[in-house]
């Protein structure tokens, strides 16, 4: 008997929460509702699936769409040697999503990077400040409406305390 794909299992288990499943280019992908993210991750983390590693977390800006931003999570299971991709769409007006910091420690920096580059806010993140850009930087550089060669104002020298 052929082993069932994780995306199909999820579709059967949570039919109303999963918007779409696909396996284009051989990458298993689930698109889910925003509020289900942490619930799904907790479910996937546990046995028998054991997606114990957060491989990557990033964001894509689809400027012009109704739901402009798409969060992309890659999970990896060492025991079954499989990857799964989770996609969550976010609206420009309500840029909030659950933080994964309680589940994975590397989510801390990854989410700070996404906050820095896209301005997505993570609920429950312990220390949401810019990671790569300096304090006082204006805008979010990886958004599509941020020009490639935009100059930033020079920030004033720090005063002696």
């Amino acid at each position, binding site marked *: 008997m052929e082993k069932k794909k994780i995306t199909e299992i999820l579709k059967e288990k949570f039919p109303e929460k999963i918007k779409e499943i696909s396996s284009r280019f051989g990458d298993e992908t689930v698109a889910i509702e925003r509020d289900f993210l942490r619930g799904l991750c907790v479910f996937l983390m546990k046995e028998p699936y054991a997606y114990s590693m957060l*491989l990557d977390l990033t964001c894509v800006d689809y400027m012009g769409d109704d739901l402009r931003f798409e969060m992309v999570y890659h999970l990896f299971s060492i025991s079954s040697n499989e990857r799964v991709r989770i996609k969550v769409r976010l609206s420009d007006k309500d840029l909030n999503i659950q933080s994964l910091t309680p589940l994975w*420690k*590397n989510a801390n*920096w*990854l989410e700070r990077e996404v906050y820095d580059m896209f301005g997505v806010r993570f609920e429950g993140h312990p220390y949401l*400040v810019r*990671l*790569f850009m300096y304090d006082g930087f204006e805008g979010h550089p990886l958004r599509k409406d941020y020009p490639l060669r935009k100059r930033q104002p020079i920030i004033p020298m720090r005063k002696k305390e």
Partner: protein
Amino acid sequence: MTFRIQKEAKKESMLINMGPSHPAMHGTIRIMLELDGEKVLNAELEVGYLHRGFEKTCEHKTYFNLLPYTDRLNYVSPLINNLGYVMTVEKLLGIEAPERAQFIRVIMSELSRISDHLTALAAMTMECGAFTAFLYYIQAREEIWRVIEQTTGARMTTSYIRIGGVRADLHPEIDPLLDKAIASTRQLLKDCHGLLDKNKIWLNRTRDVAVVNPEMAINYGFTGPCLRASGVSYDVRKAHPYCTYDQVRFEIPLGDNGDNFDRYMVRMKEMEQSLRIIEQSRKKVPLSAPTIIADGIEPVEAIRASRTKKAEAKIILSPNLEGSEKDVYSRLMAKEKKYTIPPKEDTYTNIEGLINHFKFFMKGHGIRPPKGDVYFSVEGGSGEVGYYIVSDGTDKPYRLHLRGPCFHIVAALEEMILGHYVADIIPTFGGLNMIGGELDR
């Protein structure tokens, strides 16, 4: 702005800065420390000093154009970064490099892996005061880089691995240099095992320092030697074999404790395995004879001659195209004409080749993958180098994201050094192999 560490610090403890410009911070990174005497109570890292907008730049470059930017990510193993990017695009396009090109890719990425490990260990040992070992490591790295330079034409910024294959064949005289590099690396491994393995100072500095247990390593997303030092057997080369890694025999060394000593040991053992892979792979790629075109004609003459009838004479190519002559080129590049540059001889002498060349480089044409998104990863020097590419059907990536291995590993440093002494930070930091280009992107 007040940093986290400033808010959390106790009144009586001392706050101190290490870096960003500090001899031990061999990228530019800033570690803020809260100290009680010599003991680290709390730490905070500030990164981004080498941020140069890699991902933003890539969105404005064509798929072919952005290859040189990938050299500059992990600049001690640029070939692996090339490979990761190129194979992600190949996955998107659905093409595969010819077998010979794949073996060359494996040889090149193993050479890069050795140079990566040598650099990491050199930094780590020097920071513990073992300057002799440092010089040995760097000397061996020099031999490796000579081999890389001979074939790719550059020591670090190689851009050698191209979409669909590799740029040129292995150099016809690679054998003596490669033999020497392998021999000197073997000698180095023997010497350094002798110098360090039972050295009391080395053991005291590295044993039980910055221990990372398997749960913590997985939770932080560790990959590569740092994960394997904690005893978790995961290697992309075995787990998701790419190129010809399934045709060679090698082992994955593991550590027990996950301390600095294990990270050192795993890297040392991995180099031995890399040498094994190189030795097996080179047998599969018999060297082609040096192409000496004695009776050839200059490109200008060839173009003139081909106006009236099909040119038969051989063409003398510029020396920087050495190794990509037409007769070897088909074994190095995929056949898909849409995605690869035609051999230069065709561009010069027939209309089809010229149009192919023109279409490839013309704005808005070139490589245009189908719409969709794709993730692919290869095993880099310090872990899984993954690329996530979103294509919108044009010749530029809509979004390109790099999963840099040391991003996840350095993120754990804050926790790893807690409770240790200031002096322990430096070898720990060296053992993680932090590479600014990849971390800050």
